[in-house]
Structure formats: structure tokens, C-alpha cells
């Protein structure tokens, strides 16, 4: 553990002196260090990749605020956490913007949602064509039998977001099946 820390600090000190190879090695090591932290908090690999890139760019921009005389990891994690919070804030703000009124949701929720006339298996092909997040939610709810609350916990989302995503998926499926 100490060796690894030493490596980080030695690498950034060489990087600050302009050593490009040391800098590339540092960023690679940092990305391996931070990936599990971000992956644990985000549902999808694409989101983790996007945020990882933003975090590395932020580390690049802020590298002058690290002097090599204190542990590197808390510094890098502080930036990763900052970017994660930013990402989540934007993500949930976006969800709120696109949220559906619950009155509208109620009107559109037919009995078929709880007692499906059409089985999941018969439309699984159409489900797979949906966006990844919606398809996963429907699969968990209707094939694996999880409740919206359990799906929310599993995917690191909140329950109402899961319900809204499912509702959107039902609407798309309904349109396709009516054709």
C-alpha cells in the first residue's frame, strides 16, 4: 500500500516537472484507482466511462494544486467526488425536467401493468430494442419479478425515477404493439 502511494506521489512529482511518460502512467493508475469508486455509484458502464474522462480532465486542469508533499489519493478522490456530485446533480435535474405529472401517470396506468395480458416473453424482442436503461428495468420488473423499489436499489436510482422510466417504456411498447 505504501509502495503504491509512493508511486503515485513520485509519478506526479515527475509529471509536474514535465515528464510526459510519468504523467501518462499517473493518469492510467489514477483511472484504475477511481473506476471502482465511480462504478459503485453509477448504474451504467457508459456513465462511468464518461465521468472517468471528465474526472481525468479535471485532474489535469487542477494538477497545479497538488505539490507532492501530501498524500495523492485524497486529492484525486476529492476531485472524483466533486465531479460525481456534479454529474448526479445534473442527472437528477434533467430527470425532474422530463418527469411526468403523476396525474398523467395514473391515467395511463392500466390494469394490464399489474396483470399483463401479453407475457413478457412474447414481447422481449421489442423490449430489447428499447434504450438500455428502460430495457433493464422492464426485464427486472417483469421477467425477474422485482418490485420498482427493489429495481431502484439495484440500479442506484430512486423509486419514482424507475416508475417514470418504466412508464415511458410502456408507452413506447404500446405504440409499437398497436401498429
Amino acid at each position: 500500500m505504501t509502495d503504491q502511494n509512493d508511486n503515485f506521489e513520485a509519478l506526479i512529482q515527475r509529471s509536474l516537472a514535465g515528464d510526459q511518460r510519468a504523467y501518462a502512467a499517473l493518469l492510467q493508475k489514477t483511472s484504475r484507482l477511481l473506476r471502482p469508486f465511480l462504478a459503485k455509484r453509477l448504474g451504467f458502464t457508459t456513465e462511468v466511462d464518461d465521468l472517468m474522462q471528465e474526472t481525468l480532465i479535471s485532474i489535469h486542469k487542477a494538477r497545479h494544486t497538488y505539490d507532492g508533499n501530501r498524500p495523492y489519493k485524497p486529492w484525486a478522490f476529492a476531485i472524483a467526488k466533486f465531479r460525481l456530485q456534479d454529474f448526479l446533480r445534473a442527472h437528477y435535474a434533467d430527470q425532474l425536467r422530463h418527469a411526468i405529472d403523476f396525474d398523467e401517470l395514473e391515467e395511463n396506468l392500466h390494469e394490464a401493468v399489474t396483470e399483463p395480458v401479453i407475457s413478457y416473453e412474447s414481447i422481449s424482442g421489442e423490449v430489447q430494442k428499447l434504450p438500455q436503461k428502460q430495457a433493464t428495468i422492464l426485464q427486472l420488473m417483469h421477467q425477474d419479478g422485482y418490485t420498482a423499489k427493489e429495481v431502484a436499489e439495484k440500479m442506484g436510482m430512486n423509486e419514482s425515477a424507475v416508475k417514470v422510466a418504466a412508464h415511458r417504456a410502456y408507452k413506447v411498447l404500446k405504440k409499437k404493439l398497436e401498429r
Partner: protein
Amino acid sequence: MENIDDLVARLAQDTTAVKPAPHPFMLSLQWMGIAAIYLSISIALSGWRPDILEAFHRPWFVAELAALLGIFIVTSVSAALLAFPDLHQKRLLALAPTWMFAIFLLILYFAARTDNPPVPLPAHSFECTLGITLMALLPAVWTFYFMRKYASTHYRLAGSVALLSAFSVGALWLRLHEETDSIAHVIAWHYLPMLAIGIIGLWLGKRLLKW
């Protein structure tokens, strides 16, 4: 978006030797030095309060000034620490203004208790808040200017602390310049506006220190 390997290669190719930022203690010392010069010039131009020597014999006035100076020092150090992503790994020190404000409130409470019979309120009121705010403008500008060079991950708190630091310079100036002994006036028009300043700082921090 490009993949991680491509990004790392691009960033590594772009990198050149970088001069590390000064230690936050040095940074805050620099700000305090500039503020001391600014305060000295301002008092030299506006003049000391006529009863300054007599005022320095009053223990609660001295305690109030000492606490105000403490707030200025602690908020300067805290603002400098908050300009760094990891608070330079001195989290407790970065949050020290909370303790300093608690001491300050305690001193004001005891000063108010000893103000018996109460000193009559002066004729003016909001002019003091306005004067402090105008006096704090320049320190606020330079503090935010310096802080923007770094990378705050607590930009709202950083903005608030920076603005409180600047406001304390103005408050110090007014206490040394204006001959007012009414503690009720001082609390209402000199120090209560600090609450609003702290809130404005949260907003300014988001506008100016986000990166």
C-alpha cells in the same frame, strides 16, 4: 467521447512543467498582508475614531476587535484552504470559522450585557452596513480573483467564507473609524448583515468559483 487511453495519451502529450500553487498558509498570509496595507491606507485617509485611545481601555471593545481580527485571519486561512480540491487535507482548519464566529457571538453577548444603562443609538443606521460593504468590495475582488486560479470543490462554502473575510476587513475599518459605542447599533448594522453576506457568498461562489 474518446476512450480513456486516447484521452490519457492526449493529456500526457499536452502536459508541460507546471509550477505548483503556493501553500495555502502562504496564500492567506499574502491576502492578509494586502488587507493590512489596505486597512492602514483606509484609516490613514478616513482617520481614527476620536476616542480611540480611550476605547482601547474598554475590555469588551478590545475583545470585540480581537474576535473580529480572529474572524478575518481564520476566514482568510479557510478561504485559502477551500480553494484547493482536498482542502489541502486540513479539513478541521478549513471549518474553523464556525468556532471563531461562536466566540464572536459570545463576546457580543457579554458586551451587550455590560451595556447597562444602554448607550443611546446613533442617528444613522444602514449607512454603516453600506460603508462596510463598500470597503469590503476591493478585498472581495482580490480574494475571488486569487481563488479562481485554483480548483475549489466546495465552491459555495469557499465563496461564503471569502466574502465574510472581505466583510470583516470593512467591519474592522468601521470600528476603528466610527465613534459608536451602542452595542445594539453595532450588532444590528455592523454584524447582522454578515448573515446576508454569507448567503450572497454562497451564490457568488457558485457563479465565480465553479470550474
